[in-house]
């Protein structure tokens, strides 16, 4: 669903939700923590922390290896988690879900497994200005190796992709499309379903970087019809070191493995190795079992709240914050797409983002400052960096007010 409709959902009981997150009770510089850096990484509820502890205290052993009780338990829980991930994005089969260390590894897997096998000199890969470096650099590495070329879809001043240019970039050499579902730097929600349909009509597969989308709206990979979808656990209340690649089974089967080792083989002799079936072909070595199970628990947690309610609450935070910032002289929002997730990149006249970040931190407000691993976006707006507030479902209107007060304080210091 690339154009989510924000149903007037029942209001979330935010105070009850916040009670689940021990870290939100912290004070920073003697002020209550106002955590608005969720696009970089979100916080973990007690339910997930407890699940990690339960796994490690009563269920841990290596998976897919031994017949003893713990190994069977760990294997079972790991595969249960895989099915949780499958249902979360409505994948057709659980073998289409590959555990990776995160979005970055998922994209690199596709580059090595698909790109190096199927993309050749002279071929073209379409990416967009909005991509995170993790969906740019692997493809540049591939191009350097193969002689393929990258074509880039530009954005307009609001930060929306120019779809007419996107469509005009296709030709007989186009072999792959990589597009971010939601821009981490600007919050733009891209019309990925429409873009995928256009690419498929020309026989071109599409990878969607869902790092910012999976935590904030309900994703249906069959409805999108994407070929690959990637996200990171730590951005959806799960642990770091775990994430996922969804790939259509037909692609995953055709692809070459990316890492060699244990678990990804059926038989090994020094003459010949037979690879395991998917998804195991891509999961060489002992995976972060605890983290995978924790990610499953995080998804369970989000689903009890409901992705639609999450999206609705975050949207009201976005609207409230946007309206207030628009009323502030000397503050400018960068990225004003019509279809936007709860990310606000902003600039304050005459104040460097780094100074904004430090002074907001004095007030207990955590925002990200920098280029957000999206330097092409920064270049487009001719800024070296922005400050970015990104909201999660556990943020409150009062925290938006704290941000606004903080911005006023910054302006006063620099007045």
């Amino acid at each position, binding site marked *: 669903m690339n154009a989510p409709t924000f149903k007037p959902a029942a209001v979330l009981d935010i105070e009850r939700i916040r009670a689940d997150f021990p870290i939100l009770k912290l004070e920073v510089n003697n002020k209550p923590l106002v955590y608005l850096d969720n696009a970089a990484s979100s916080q973990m509820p007690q339910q997930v922390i407890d699940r990690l502890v339960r796994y490690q205290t009563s269920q841990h052993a290596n998976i897919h290896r031994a017949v003893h009780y713990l190994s069977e338990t760990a294997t079972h829980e790991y595969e249960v988690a895989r099915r949780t991930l499958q249902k979360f994005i409505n994948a057709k089969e659980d073998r289409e879900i590959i555990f990776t260390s995160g979005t970055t590894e998922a994209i690199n897997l596709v580059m090595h497994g698909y790109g190096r096998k199927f993309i050749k000199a002279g071929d073209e890969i379409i990416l967009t200005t909005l991509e995170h470096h993790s969906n740019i650099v692997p493809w540049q590495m591939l191009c350097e190796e193969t002689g393929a070329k990258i074509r880039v879809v530009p954005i307009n001043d609001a930060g929306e992709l120019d779809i007419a240019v996107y469509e005009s970039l296709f030709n007989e050499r186009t072999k792959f499309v990589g597009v971010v579902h939601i821009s981490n730097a600007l919050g733009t929600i891209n019309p990925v379903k429409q873009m995928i349909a256009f690419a498929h009509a020309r026989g071109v597969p599409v990878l969607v970087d869902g790092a910012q989308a999976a935590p904030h709206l309900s994703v249906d990979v069959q409805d999108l019809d994407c070929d690959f979808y990637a996200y990171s656990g730590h951005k959806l209340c799960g642990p770091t070191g775990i994430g996922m690649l969804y790939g259509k089974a037909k692609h995953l089967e055709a692809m070459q493995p990316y890492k060699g080792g244990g678990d990804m083989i059926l038989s090994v002799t020094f003459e010949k190795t037979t690879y395991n079936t998917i998804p195991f072909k891509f999961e060489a070595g002992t995976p972060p079992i605890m983290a995978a199970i924790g990610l499953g628990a995080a998804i369970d947690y989000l689903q009890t709240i409901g992705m639609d309610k999450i999206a609705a609450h975050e949207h009201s935070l976005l609207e409230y914050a946007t309206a207030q910032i628009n009323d502030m002289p000397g503050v400018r929002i960068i990225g004003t797409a019509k279809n936007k997730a709860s990310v606000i990149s902003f600039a304050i006249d005459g104040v*460097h983002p780094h*100074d904004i970040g430090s002074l907001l931190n004095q007030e207990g407000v955590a925002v990200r400052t920098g280029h957000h691993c999206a330097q092409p976006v920064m270049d487009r707006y001719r800024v070296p960096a922005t400050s970015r507030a990104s909201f999660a479902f556990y943020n409150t209107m009062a925290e938006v007010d704290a941000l606004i007060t903080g911005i006023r304080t910054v302006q006063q210091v620099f007045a």
Partner: protein
Amino acid sequence: MADLKALYQEVILDHNKKPRNYGKLSPSTHHAEGHNPLCGDHISVTLNLSGNLADVKIEAIGFEGEACAVCKSSASMMTVAVKGKTRDEAETLTQDFLAMATGKMDMNAPNNMGRLAVFAGVKDLPTRVKCAILPWHTLHAAFNSVLEVSTEADADPMHTS
């Protein structure tokens, strides 16, 4: 935690708004560029040195660039502090400034920091130390006319302390 607002109020009111020795010397005898990849800061330092070996002297110094207030004020104050000094004096001051910014200087003992002492507080802000020391690294590079320096590599205070 240092009172960051006080640091800002002290340096911003002055050097960020009215940076001294701002601009590129042309011609210059030495110059270097410095980057902080973390925040995209970028400054250049140009020098006109006179004299030889033992008593090389900074006749003129200029700095320029896109940078946060901490970096810009540090650069501005640096130019004031080193102008007219010998290379050796400036290099000693650089070492002392780096020691202060990374928390290795006892600020209660007598020191030669003078007005630069306002930057002592950045030692509690690891992500900002780099901003404060970038101009000094760039000055050092300019003496050697190493044309590019970055605060991410060996100069990273997180790795040296």
